[in-house]
C-alpha cells in the first residue's frame, strides 16, 4: 500500500510547506508568549536566587524590598547577625531609577551591596566580564542589558561610577537591568536629595529663626548636617547556617527584632503571585486566545485542505477505499502539518527570543507540552475534516 497522504503532500509540497511555515510562525508566536510568561516568572526566581539570601528582613508590615518600599536602620543587621542560625547578614538597598550612561539614560535597578567579597548576600552570582566590586567607592557591576561596557562611566545621581564588571540575567521584576554599586554610594543615591533641593532645604532651615540662633553659633550647621544623614537600608539579606530551618529563624527575628521576615518561598510568592500577577494574567489570557486562534486556524487549514480534495475522496470511496484509509490520510496530513508547524515555530521562537527586551524562557517542558497540544489540536482539527470527508457520498463521483 502506498501512502496516500505522503503522495498528496509530495504532489503539492511547496504549498504544504508554505502552509506549515505560516502555521509555524503562528505557533512560534504562541510559544514565545508562553516563553515571555516563563521569562517573567524566571526573572523573579533569578532575582531571588541571585540575591543569595535565605531570608529577607524588611520593615515591619511591608512586603519586602521588591514589592514595596521598606527602610531599616543601617545597623539593624548587627543585631540580626547575632541571632542563632544566621551565618551572614548584609545590608542591601534597591532603587529603580534612571541612570545616565553614554549620553542617554537607562532605566535600571540600582542595588547597593556591601562589597564584602564574592559569595556575600546581594552580590551578583556570576559575571560575564570584569570583576566584582573590590570595596572601592564609585564602582559598578552592571547587567549587560544596561548596555554598558567595561570601563564605561555611568552617572547615578551626582556621582560617576566606573563599570568594573558585567553580569547577565540580573533584572528586577519589572525587567530593568540591575546595577550593583557599593552600599554607601547607593545609600547616598537613594536618600540624598539633589543639589537644588539641598540648597532650598538649607535656605529654609536657615530662615527658620528657631534653628538659626545668633547666640548659638553652630546650631544651624548641626541641623543641616543632621538633615543629610542617610543611615537607612531597604532590607537585610540573611544567609543561614546549615541545618537551621528558615521558618524557625524567621520567626525568631520577627519576634525579637520586631521586623518583617520573608523566606525564599514567601518571597517567591510575593514576586510571582503579587508583583507580576497582573502582567502574567494578561499574558496568560493572550496565550489562551492565541492557542485558540492557532487551533482554529489549524482546523480551518486542514478542513480546507480536505475540502479541496473532496472529489478525489469521493472517487476513492467509490473505487472502494476504506474509511480508515481516507481518515488516516487526512490525519497523517494534519499531523505532518502540525509537526512542521511545531518545528518551524520552535525554531522561530528560539531565533527571535533574544531580540525581546525581556527575557524569554523557552522551557523544553513547554516545548513538549506545546508539541502535544499542537498534535492534539491537529488530530481534533482533522476529526472535523474526516467527518466531512466520510460524509461525502461516493455517488457524487458518478455524475448525475
Amino acid at each position, binding site marked *: *500500500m*502506498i501512502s*496516500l497522504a505522503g*503522495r*498528496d503532500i*509530495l*504532489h*503539492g509540497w511547496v504549498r504544504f510547506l508554505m502552509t506549515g511555515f505560516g502555521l509555524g510562525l503562528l505557533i512560534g508566536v504562541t510559544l514565545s508568549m508562553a516563553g515571555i510568561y516563563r521569562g517573567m516568572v524566571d526573572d523573579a526566581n533569578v532575582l531571588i536566587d541571585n540575591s543569595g539570601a535565605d531570608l529577607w528582613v524588611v520593615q515591619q508590615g511591608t512586603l519586602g524590598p521588591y514589592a514595596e518600599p521598606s527602610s531599616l536602620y543601617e545597623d539593624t543587621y548587627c543585631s540580626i547577625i547575632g541571632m542563632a542560625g544566621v551565618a551572614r547578614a548584609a545590608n542591601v538597598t534597591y532603587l529603580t531609577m534612571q541612570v545616565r550612561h553614554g549620553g542617554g539614560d537607562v532605566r535600571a535597578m540600582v542595588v547597593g551591596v556591601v562589597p564584602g567579597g564574592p559569595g556575600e548576600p546581594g552580590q551578583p552570582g556570576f559575571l560575564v566580564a570584569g570583576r566584582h566590586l573590590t570595596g572601592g567607592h564609585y564602582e559598578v557591576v552592571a547587567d549587560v542589558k544596561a548596555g554598558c561596557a567595561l570601563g564605561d562611566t555611568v552617572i547615578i545621581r551626582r556621582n560617576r561610577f566606573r563599570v568594573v564588571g558585567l553580569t547577565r540575567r540580573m533584572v528586577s521584576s519589572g525587567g530593568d537591568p540591575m546595577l550593583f554599586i557599593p552600599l554607601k554610594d547607593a545609600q547616598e543615591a537613594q536618600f540624598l536629595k539633589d543639589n537644588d533641593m539641598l540648597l532650598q532645604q538649607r535656605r529654609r532651615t536657615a530662615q527658620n529663626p528657631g534653628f538659626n540662633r545668633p547666640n548659638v553659633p553652630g546650631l544651624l550647621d548641626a541641623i543641616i548636617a543632621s538633615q543629610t544623614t542617610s543611615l537607612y537600608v531597604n532590607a537585610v539579606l540573611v544567609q543561614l547556617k546549615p541545618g537551621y530551618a528558615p521558618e524557625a529563624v524567621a520567626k525568631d527575628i520577627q519576634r525579637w527584632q520586631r521586623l518583617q521576615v520573608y523566606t525564599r518561598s514567601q518571597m517567591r510568592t510575593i514576586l510571582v503571585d503579587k508583583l507580576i500577577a497582573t502582567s502574567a494574567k494578561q499574558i496568560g489570557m493572550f496565550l489562551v486566545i492565541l492557542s485558540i486562534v492557532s487551533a482554529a486556524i489549524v482546523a480551518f487549514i486542514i478542513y480546507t485542505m480536505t475540502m479541496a480534495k473532496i*472529489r*478525489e475522496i469521493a*472517487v*476513492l*470511496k*467509490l*473505487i*472502494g*477505499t*476504506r474509511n480508515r*484509509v481516507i481518515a488516516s490520510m487526512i490525519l497523517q496530513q494534519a499531523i505532518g502539518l502540525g509537526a512542521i508547524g511545531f518545528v518551524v515555530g520552535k525554531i522561530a521562537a528560539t531565533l527571535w527570543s533574544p531580540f525581546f527586551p525581556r527575557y524569554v524562557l523557552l522551557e523544553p517542558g513547554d516545548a513538549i507540552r506545546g508539541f502535544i497540544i499542537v498534535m492534539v489540536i491537529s488530530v481534533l482539527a482533522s476529526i472535523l475534516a474526516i467527518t466531512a470527508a466520510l460524509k461525502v*457520498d*461516493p*455517488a457524487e*463521483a*458518478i*455524475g*448525475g
Partner: protein
Amino acid sequence: MSGNGIVIEGLQKRYGSGDTLVDALKGVDMQVAPAEVVGLVGPSGSGKSTLLKCLGAVIEPSAGRMRLGEEMIYDGGWKIRDLRALRRDKIGFVFQAPYLIPFLDVLDNVALLPMLAGERNGVARKRAMELLEALDVGHRAKAMPAQLSGGEQQRVAIARALVNHPPVILADEPTAPLDSQRALAVIAILNDMARQYETAIIIVTHDEKIIPTFKRIYHIRDGRTHEEAGEGKSPHELIKTDKA
C-alpha cells in the same frame, strides 16, 4: 470468474416520502452476459444515473433483485455486508471525466485498487503496468494525470476499472469529452477488454457516435427499461469509416 454476468429484476428506487415521493426507478430488468457490452440510453431524468448508482452499490434500491455473477447482491435488501469491497473487487467504474487521483502517478492510480484489496505493491504495480501496456499508455506510467491528454486519461481510467478484473464495468458517459475518433477508440478498447476479461460492460451514454456499436441497447424511460437490438457495428470499422 464472471459467471452469469449481471442480472437485474424489477429493480425499483423511490426517493423521499409523502408529497415529495419520487419513483426514480419503477421496474428495471436487465441482463448482461459476461464479455457483453450493452448500451443504456435515455433522456435526462429518465433514471439512468439512479440505475447506475444502484448498480454501483452506491445507493440502495427500494425493491427488486440484483445478481452479480453467481452472487445475489440485492434482494429487497443488500445481501452483502461490505459494499466497498464489492465495489472494489466486483465493479469497475469509468466516468464521464476520468477522475484520476491527481496526486498519484498513472501507474499508482491504477495500482491503487489492487493495493486497496491487499495486494503487495510490486504485484499490484506489475498488474497495473500490464494493463497500461495493453491500453497503450504504458509509456506514461510515471506521468502525473494532469500531464496526460483526455484520451490517455480515459484509457488510464479504463485500466483502473479493469485492474481488479471485476465481472462488471459500469461506464458513465465515458466518451462525452472526446471527439468521435477517440470516443470510438475508447469503445473499441472497452469491447476488446470485455472480450479479453469476460467482463460485462454497461455503458450509459447518449453519444450518437457510439450507439451504433452496441448489439443490445436498453432504453430507459420513466424509470422503466426497454430492451432493443442495436446495430452491433464494430467500433474498429466505424473508426475507419469515420476517418474516411
